């Protein structure tokens, strides 16, 4: 295993470097890690390696079809810092029973589970991507798409459903659908059965009436 050249990263450059390495067969990845980081360091001329530096290296030295594939993935890359995932995995460990802890943690930090985050988790833990996808889609808590800048959860428990005689839940749903900035999910009982329907807006639970008024101001 060759040593990776000491290099400082800036912005999303490290995440892009990892995406680049993903294309390399696993057995050769460590060797390429050293070689490629040396080329990038050279490009950066001793300074921190920027996103442009990484892109330039890909354009110059990576052969097709890998080049197009990597550039495409760069474009798909979300606006989160892949370093977050390193820290999270370091904190929890890499065995399968830690997977849900990792996914919960990523969702807390990033707000949802971006595809490239799942890919990074797969690379770093050795758990097959399809298994991770299976878990991430089976459990309803996990979101694979980016939520709106305000996130609303509406309780669909029996008590809230029965006591909601004026159809507040439906009105709230319509209001949310009309607004691009607000996203919504339905949840099981939140334990506030006297607030029917209980609605959580950005982490705080409100009574249905109050929630409806608040959502009107968000949109």
């Amino acid at each position, binding site marked *: 295993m060759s040593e990776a050249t000491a290099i400082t990263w800036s912005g999303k450059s490290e995440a892009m470097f990892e995406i680049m390495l993903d294309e390399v067969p696993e057995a050769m990845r460590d060797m390429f890690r050293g070689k490629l980081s040396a080329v990038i360091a050279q490009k950066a001329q001793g300074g921190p390696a920027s996103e442009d530096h990484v892109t330039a290296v890909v354009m110059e030295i990576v052969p097709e079809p890998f080049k197009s594939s990597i550039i495409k993935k760069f474009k798909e890359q979300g606006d989160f810092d892949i370093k977050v995932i390193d820290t999270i995995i370091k904190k929890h460990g890499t*065995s*399968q*029973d*830690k*997977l*849900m*802890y990792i996914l*919960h943690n990523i969702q807390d930090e990033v707000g949802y589970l971006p595809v490239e985050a799942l890919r990074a988790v797969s690379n770093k833990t050795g758990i097959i991507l399809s298994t991770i996808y*299976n*878990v991430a889609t*089976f*459990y*309803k*808590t*996990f979101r694979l798409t980016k939520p709106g800048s305000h996130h609303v*959860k509406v309780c*669909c*428990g*029996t*008590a809230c*459903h*029965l*006591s909601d*005689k004026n159809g507040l839940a439906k009105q709230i749903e319509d209001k949310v659908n009309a607004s691009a900035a607000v996203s919504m999910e339905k*949840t*099981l*009982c*939140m*334990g*506030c*059965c*006297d*607030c029917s329907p*209980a609605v959580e807006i950005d*982490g*705080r*639970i*409100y*009574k249905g009436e109050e929630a409806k008024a608040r959502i009107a101001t968000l949109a």
Partner: protein
Amino acid sequence: MKLQTAKDLHKAKEQGNKTLFPGKVRINVGMSSCCIAKGADLVLSALEYGLKSRAMDAEVAKVGCSGLCHMEPTVEIQQPGKPKIIYGNVKGQDVPRLLEAITSGSVVEDMAFARIDSEDHALVGEIKYQYSDDAGAYASIKSVNDIDFLKAQHKVILRNAGSINPENIYEYIARGGYDALAKALLMKPEAIIKDVIDAELRGRGGGGFPAGLKWKACRDATGTEKYLICNVSEGEPDIGMHLSFLESDPHSVLEGLVIGGYAIGAKTAYVYLRNNYRIALKRFQKAIDDATELGLLGDKILGSPFSMTVKVKEGGGRYICGEETALIACIEGHIGEPAQRPPFPVEKGLFGMPTCINNVETWANVPLIIAKGSSWYNAIGTQKTKGTKVLSLSGNISRSGMIEVDMGTSIKDVVYTIGGGVADGKKLKGIQTGGPSGGILPSNLDNLTVDYDTLKKAGSILGSGGMVIMDDETDMVKVARYLTNFFVQESCGKCVPCREGVCRMGSIIDEIIAGRGKAHDLTLLQEMSEPIMSASACALGKTAPTPILSTLKHFRDDYIAYIK
């Protein structure tokens, strides 16, 4: 500081009493998630601001839910030598009046709900908490002993809920907490299990399986490691309120787990908590950290050779994960699909090792059994079911809340005396017990009592204690559709009868509601339910047709009205 002996524990009690009885005013503000939803956090900040600006000295405690969900936010004011006063439906603008009353040593009569002169406590039985020195003080305010909602209850598991700060371990210790653990560590593990068997504690998760026998089977099973699981996966769509006792008194569950770990020989326990309960998660994690710091958890507990760790596992919002084997799969990091039983988890459970899974309420019962003895526990409840039961009353009821009654209490009392009957003066149409897997029973509540066997005989289950009251405006066909849709969404998809069958039953009901139903649809629904119930592997599939079957049995007229 680690506590090593019973003497150290006694010292910790003094520290707890310093905040419980601070020698000055103590104000308890209910701050569990149901209280916050109704604005308790705003009341708290108004109180803190008011106290500061008036330069008043008071102990403000953020307590859990006292069960009075219908009159939250609640504030309790305890002045030295005076009765404790409960105020309900407090708003931020009421705070100045409360503070003035404190300064003048009086009470805001139009806002006060009840006064407490003295209080019994299940664990500190012989020491009654005496608040009032003067028997006639605040006589114009109703005593708690005269309030229907409270006097019919028997608070054993909920003994601390709403009275102590759940984030302060010393207050729990001061009220007799961890005494049972100290006692248990001096006993032989077999003797503890014998106590639990003699107490006839039945699992509170739904089935009512004797907990002691489960413990014994797990202790006797062979494995290099043993695990405990505390099931808090209250995915039932009406039972979340019930979970707030974890927010209000997390140490009682923790203490039960450590005693169980010592008796069974397990070194690791998992507390499986549904997601979305962020406050419960945070408080439970704090309870674990505090207990570890005091040496009540972790290495060499209370100076004994026994060590144990407790981990919190956050679920993913699936009802199915309340099923034992699905829960185990979830903790192992897989999707929550139930596995074939046998082998039962007590033989081969988490990571292939013997695992004892009990509901959160079952674990909370354990410290009481050990502290007070099996015969004390045995005396509460009915012949077949001992102890008390925490219930959550919700739906169209006048006084909703989290309550606790003796096993064997009549459901009529629960609904009318405690719950105050149906909301808005309407009539009772039905009552759902035990969540969606339970049935909906008709309005005649005679002969129904809170215990596993009578409810089973009536065609429902006690489950984990959810009771949803439905008034006479409720359309039972729509309720059946709502509950069936719930099962359609929550089926894990492993068994075809459950995945496809329940979905088809749902579409038949959709047709009926759309006015396109035919008379033979009702027979069809009945016939379909049989293979679904017999050919599904787990309890979810086996009970998925229950809402339809029980509404068909008791509320057939609602269906007929659609079919014409």
